[in-house]
């Protein structure tokens, strides 16, 4: 089901939660709504499910106005953050609920319901737990029951609110892969809400980053990672250094660093900020350079350096692959020059400049390093 969301605005009392959301989702797409708590992502999901109504905007699904439909008639599979299982029903009855509550005319016969529930329980790999009650299940098993229950109504759209939020890290990883396979196999449109960046990037075809009731950026994980649309997104993705820079006559000048490899963006001259990730910086020993290595940390496959740059309050983080680090043979207190291989430049006024393209030199350096 293709979903078109236009101009959605939602206020609770007087507090705006969504301030104009426009988003189209293609049929069969797996989309992550990513944002901090309070960004409005869950509210958007609830509006799609028919559990909240916006004050303005429209939701059209395959040409039908969805805001005119109540939750019961949208046929949306919704998996709640805390699963919302019926505690007094067995797993089997929980899964069958969506079928047994249908009016008699459209309700499948008992045998068919039973068969379908069995098939669903096998699909989510908990066939052996059919007669248990939710209180007797582990978190991961409850999650599967909730999913099977949502799938029982053969939803055209599957919505999941923080699907892995309440699970251990280990189970979470397994379930992620499994959910992706399930989505591919069943071919419905799936939207899930998460605050976990790894989860969104690993699982989704497209990630929608939300903040303060607005969409900051929507794109494939690669697009967002390589070309963050705003300083907010660059910061939100985390693990990034912010270096003050100067744009002058088409050249990018970063005090204390060599930015020659970063293709300067076309744009107005003036002050700007360069966002550069730790692994996009190389270190070269240079006794005349102003930067000093403050600290070194080994994290298995790579070495992390904290480099003090004059004029910067926080040290710049640099990450070199283990092999490259061995070749550089740097020690604490050494004077180094920062070579920036890649970066994204935003002008000081916050207006995003066309992102810097990766330079051929970067690949050369990386190849040499490895």
């Amino acid at each position, binding site marked *: 089901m293709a979903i078109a969301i236009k101009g959605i605005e939602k206020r609770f009392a007087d507090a705006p939660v969504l301030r104009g959301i426009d988003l189209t989702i293609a049929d069969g797409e797996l989309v992550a709504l990513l944002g901090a708590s309070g960004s409005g992502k869950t509210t958007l999901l609830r509006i799609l*499910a*028919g*559990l909240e109504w916006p004050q303005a905007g429209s939701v059209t699904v395959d040409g039908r106005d969805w805001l005119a439909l*109540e*939750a*019961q*008639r*949208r*046929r*949306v*599979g*919704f998996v*709640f*953050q*805390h699963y*919302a*299982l*019926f*505690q*007094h*029903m*067995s797993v089997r009855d929980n899964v069958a*609920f*969506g079928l047994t*509550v*249908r009016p008699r005319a459209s309700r499948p016969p008992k045998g068919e319901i039973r068969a379908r529930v069995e098939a669903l329980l096998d699909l989510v790999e908990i066939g052996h737990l059919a007669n248990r*009650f*939710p*209180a*007797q299940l582990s978190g991961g098993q409850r999650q599967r029951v909730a999913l099977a*229950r*949502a799938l*029982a*109504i053969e939803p055209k759209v599957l919505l999941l609110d923080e699907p892995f939020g309440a699970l251990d890290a280990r189970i979470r990883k397994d379930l992620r892969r499994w959910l992706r396979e399930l989505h591919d196999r069943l071919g419905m449109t799936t939207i899930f809400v998460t605050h976990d960046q790894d989860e969104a990037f690993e699982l989704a075809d497209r990630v929608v980053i939300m903040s303060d009731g607005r969409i900051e950026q929507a794109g494939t994980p690669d697009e967002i990672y390589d070309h963050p649309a705003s300083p907010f997104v660059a910061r939100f993705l985390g693990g990034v250094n912010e270096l003050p820079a100067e744009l002058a006559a088409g050249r990018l000048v970063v005090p204390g660093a060599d930015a020659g490899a970063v293709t300067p963006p076309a744009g107005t001259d003036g002050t700007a900020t360069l966002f550069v990730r730790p692994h996009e910086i190389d270190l070269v020993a240079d006794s005349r350079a102003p930067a000093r290595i403050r600290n070194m940390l080994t994290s298995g496959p790579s070495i992390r350096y904290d480099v003090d740059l004059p004029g910067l309050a926080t040290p710049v983080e640099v990450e070199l692959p283990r092999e490259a680090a061995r070749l550089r043979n740097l020690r604490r207190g050494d004077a180094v020059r920062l070579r920036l291989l890649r970066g994204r430049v935003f002008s000081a006024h916050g207006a995003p400049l066309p992102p810097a393209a990766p330079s051929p030199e970067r690949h050369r350096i990386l190849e040499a390093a490895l």
Partner: protein
Amino acid sequence: MTAAALRIGLRSRRVLPGFGLTMGTTLTYVALVVLLPLAALLLKSAEIGPDGFLRLVTGERALAAFQVTLTAAAFATAFNAAYGLLMAWVLVRYEFAGKRILDALMDIPFALPTAVAGVALTALYAANGWFGQLFEMAGLKIVYTVTGVALAMAFTSAPFVVRTVQPVLESLQPDIEEASATLGAYPGVIFRRVIYPVIFPAHLTGCALAFARSLGEFGAVIFIAGNLPFKTEIVSLLVFIRLEEYDYAAASAIAVVLLATAFAVLLATNALQALAQRHARKG
């Protein structure tokens, strides 16, 4: 099990001390205030032997009193089952002005001396009382009938249902109702299949307590009942009358039956409840 728990309690170290003292005080209290009088009652009625006992409790007047009491208690409980559930629902589900006052009012029947309640109800529902006049016009007599007895019982036992259902309703997570809605269930079905099964055990407990209380209600009932033997005389009044006549054997025999009935109701309730809550067991 109690003995085992005691031994563990004495041996293991706990964060809060005083297990021995608190447990001892509790058991002493239970023995003195609850068990001893009950034992005395049972002993007294045992003195008369099984034949005498049977004769006393199946006497015509006693049987009539049992019938009046059980019928009135059943009606009062049925009324409270519905009204108490509704009241708890309103108090939990909606926000409105004066909600806290209404909530506090729920406890009035407990706080009010039952005799005061009885006098007030009698005044209101008497043939010349405010409500009594209206019912009179409709051809309904309340005071000095079994209806009046049931009314008094319903008044004094109403809080049991409200107060047992209320916390369970409050603890219901809204997301299970939302989940039901997304699965295609409409409000009626959601109540019947999702909400009521969860509050059922508490509702049952409330009703059982209300019924047990109604069986023994004395103060509120005797004013409105008229106390005509064979017509509107309740069991606890009959016990009182037998005591006044120094007929301790008859009084204790009838009292024992009343006690057994209340006990059986509570026991049956617990069994039903255990059945209804088997899903909560781990394992």
